[in-house]
């Protein structure tokens, strides 16, 4: 990597990039400059044009006009492959790995080293091992199938693949969206290594704190236009949000509706456990929002799935609304007044080929068919209240943005008037404005006496929304913290760094 010496020079320069689809302009002449060895944050609401810009650099889209230069040479791509070969690698949010193939086979896919007509497997493994050592993960075995890797490790393989392509620029789309905080640390370290080698990183993320932690320069897009580019130290989270949304969100998290006070216990667990969580005791009262924090793999989603009967508890007791409840299936939980907003909308929440209305009525139809007609009458106003933006009730949900898809998910559960709502990463992958909408729905539900249990990996969200915070570690509750706690308190409890915190 001789180019390390050139650190600080311009690696990539895009000027006046215009892109339109079906007559709609989505990028209005955007400029971007990436310097060697810098991590450049690209932020903006969903729909601001970040993904489009990234896909242009990746060769997925061809811009209508504008120029892109790599190391001073003008370039244009007609396929992702050309972009890769030119030295622009892209790590997509959804991984592009083959789960049944090994790490080495994935990294060399399409460029397998050969000896004669045959693939040189020994060399493939050797070079992969060297590569993984270079980026600082020598313990990963190149012969492991990707299926056996954690999300973070798969991310590492993606990055290793980019490095193996001798990339000058690596753009990363929401690389931490699925990572726990301790895994983010690994990513941070790897990124630092890459920048030392003179690689420019384009870093797209919704997690603003991370953007400040990692990036030296930040570019903000809004509605397809450039708002500006600033050195990171000239901004703080508040001013950044103002640039992104063009308005200041009232302290980011809405306050509880006046008069919201904890009422009777609506959800009680006593020593509950199954294969994945153990000895969980907790109480959520009517009108209360209880946050569940913890590292990835700490058992938070599993806890919700246990309560909801998807992975039924085999030990302990559970009460809902004061009555004993032991759901053996989600159906029984739904009938008892529980609702679960899943972690992943696309794979666990929605039927993407069905319409907005079909999805919104999905639960009612499946569980309470006799209430369908009534729900159909009220659904349009429910969706209107959620400020759903769609072409109509008969639009397929796959064409909605993430935030609007989440509103459809919320609507289908609101139609049941649940008494206990379980939320799993309720704002993952949706833009700032839509996040605020979700928070408002939560506050409104709480005010109407619903008990809410919310799992989230975004600590500011947990701290900003919860009345109390439960922290999980290794499948058990590690302790409870008040909402006035700091992020450090939560992390200490989640990682077990501070055993002194009373449980």
């Amino acid at each position, binding site marked *: 990597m001789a180019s390390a010496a050139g650190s600080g020079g311009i690696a990539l320069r895009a000027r006046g990039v215009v892109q339109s689809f079906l007559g709609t302009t989505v990028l209005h002449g955007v400029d971007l400059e990436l310097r060697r060895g810098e991590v450049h944050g690209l932020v903006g609401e969903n729909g601001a044009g970040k993904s489009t810009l990234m896909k242009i650099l990746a060769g997925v889209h061809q811009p209508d006009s504008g120029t892109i230069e790599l190391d001073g040479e003008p370039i244009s791509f007609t396929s992702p492959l050309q972009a890769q070969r030119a030295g622009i690698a892209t790590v997509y949010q959804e991984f592009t790995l083959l789960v049944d193939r090994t790490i080495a086979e994935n990294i060399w896919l399409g460029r397998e080293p050969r000896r004669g007509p045959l693939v040189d497997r020994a060399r493939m493994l050797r070079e992969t091992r060297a590569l993984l050592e270079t980026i600082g993960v020598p313990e990963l075995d190149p012969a492991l199938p990707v299926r056996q890797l954690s*999300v973070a490790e798969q991310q590492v393989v993606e990055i290793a693949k980019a490095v193996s392509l001798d990339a000058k620029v690596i753009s990363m789309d929401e690389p931490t969206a699925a990572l726990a905080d301790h895994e983010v640390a690994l990513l941070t370290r790897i990124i630092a290594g890459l920048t030392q080698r003179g690689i420019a990183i384009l870093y797209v993320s919704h997690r603003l704190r991370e953007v400040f932690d990692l990036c030296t320069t930040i570019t903000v897009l809004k509605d397809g236009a450039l708002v500006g580019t600033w050195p990171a130290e000239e901004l703080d989270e508040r001013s950044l949000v103002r640039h992104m949304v063009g308005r200041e969100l009232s302290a980011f998290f809405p306050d509880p509706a006046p008069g919201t006070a904890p009422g009777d216990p609506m959800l009680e667990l006593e020593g509950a456990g199954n294969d994945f969580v153990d000895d969980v005791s907790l109480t959520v009262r009517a009108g209360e929002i209880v946050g569940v924090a913890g590292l990835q793999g700490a058992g938070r989603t599993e806890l919700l799935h246990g309560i909801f009967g998807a992975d039924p508890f085999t030990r302990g007791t559970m009460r809902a609304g004061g009555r004993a409840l032991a759901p053996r299936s989600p159906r029984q939980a739904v009938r008892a007044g529980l609702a679960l907003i899943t972690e*992943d909308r696309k794979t666990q929440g929605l039927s*993407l080929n069905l319409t907005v209305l079909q999805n919104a009525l999905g639960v009612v139809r499946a569980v309470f068919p006799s209430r369908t007609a009534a729900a159909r009458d009220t659904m349009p106003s429910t969706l209107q209240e959620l400020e759903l933006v769609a072409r109509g009730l008969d639009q397929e949900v796959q064409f909605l943005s993430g935030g609007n898809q989440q509103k459809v998910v919320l609507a289908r559960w609101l139609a049941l008037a649940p008494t206990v709502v379980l939320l799993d990463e309720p704002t993952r992958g949706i833009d700032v404005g839509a996040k605020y909408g979700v928070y408002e729905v939560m506050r409104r539900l709480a005010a109407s006496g619903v008990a809410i249990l919310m799992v989230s990996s975004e600590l500011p969200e947990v701290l900003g929304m919860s009345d109390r915070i439960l922290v999980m570690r290794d499948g058990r509750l590690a302790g409870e913290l008040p909402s006035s706690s700091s992020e450090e308190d939560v992390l200490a409890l989640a990682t077990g760094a501070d055993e002194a915190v009373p449980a």
Partner: protein
Amino acid sequence: MTALAQRSPGRRFLSALATPGGAVFVLLVVLLVAASIANPRFAEPDQLVRFLARTAPIAIAAIGQFFVIVSGEFDLSMGAVIAAQVVIAGNVIGQDEAMILPGIALMLLVGVVVGLLNGLLTTLAKVPSFIVTLGTMLALYGFVRFLTGGAATGNPVDSFREIGRGSLGDVLPYPVIILVVLAVGAWLLMRAPFGHTLLAVGDNPVAARLSGTRTGAVKVAAFVLSSLSATVAGILLVGYAGVHPSIGTGYEFQAITAVVLGGAVLGGGRGWVLSAAAGAIALELLFTVLNQVGIDSTWRPSVQGIIIILAVALGAVAWRTARRPASVTRAEAAAGADPDPIPTPTPTPGEQ
């Protein structure tokens, strides 16, 4: 954005015709016109009704196969079920009038059992339905040939065979009545919560389960409906064609062809049940037209082969374009609803 209301019925009808599920009706009309031109007598009501009676078994089978396909599965055992039912009719009912009702009850029971077996092995044992129904197909054919020795045996009484070849007042054949009743029933079923849930299960079984759907029960029900429709098709075919173990051969693929021609998407989540029945009728109509213009009936499989490939090739494109928003707002377009969206691979969360 105030566009949350549904579009007007007229516009919905027109845009529905542009989907594969609607286009099959257009095809049906075109073929009907072609058949009438080739043979003006064909357009006469009695001829049409007789034609419809002849297509009733395959149309009913297609309706049954539709439920399974739209739930994301396959039923390859259909032809074997028909063969088994035909043999049961020949041997159990025979020449004994009194055995007609018990015989029909037994056939329906066998239908339910096969459907349950297919459904439970698919949902509980998690075996792909392609393999499960292939297994039941082999087993049932083996059973049928074991019973019959591979030759035509038994002949049920004429009063039973009347179901398949008689008509009400010499005007309306029973098969047509049965077809219409079943088609209306299937249409209502698809509009009922069960139908929507079936679509949701075919589209995304994980999401459906986490929404409180008994996904297993829904799929099992689809398989039972499929076997039952094969049973009814078998009862009609006995009347029409008598008893032979080879009756029903190829029905599974013909039914799948019809469903696909009717615009349903293999893999589940999309399709209209009446279009499946229309697909079956259109297919038979096409064979009729080809017969009329003097093409040997031995070419039938070839025609079916071309049709199924074309239907799927065109259908895949048409669903995408017909139900896409005509214009997307800027925000939506940039948010990922690009004109050429990269099909997003499912993220692989490893083992947590």
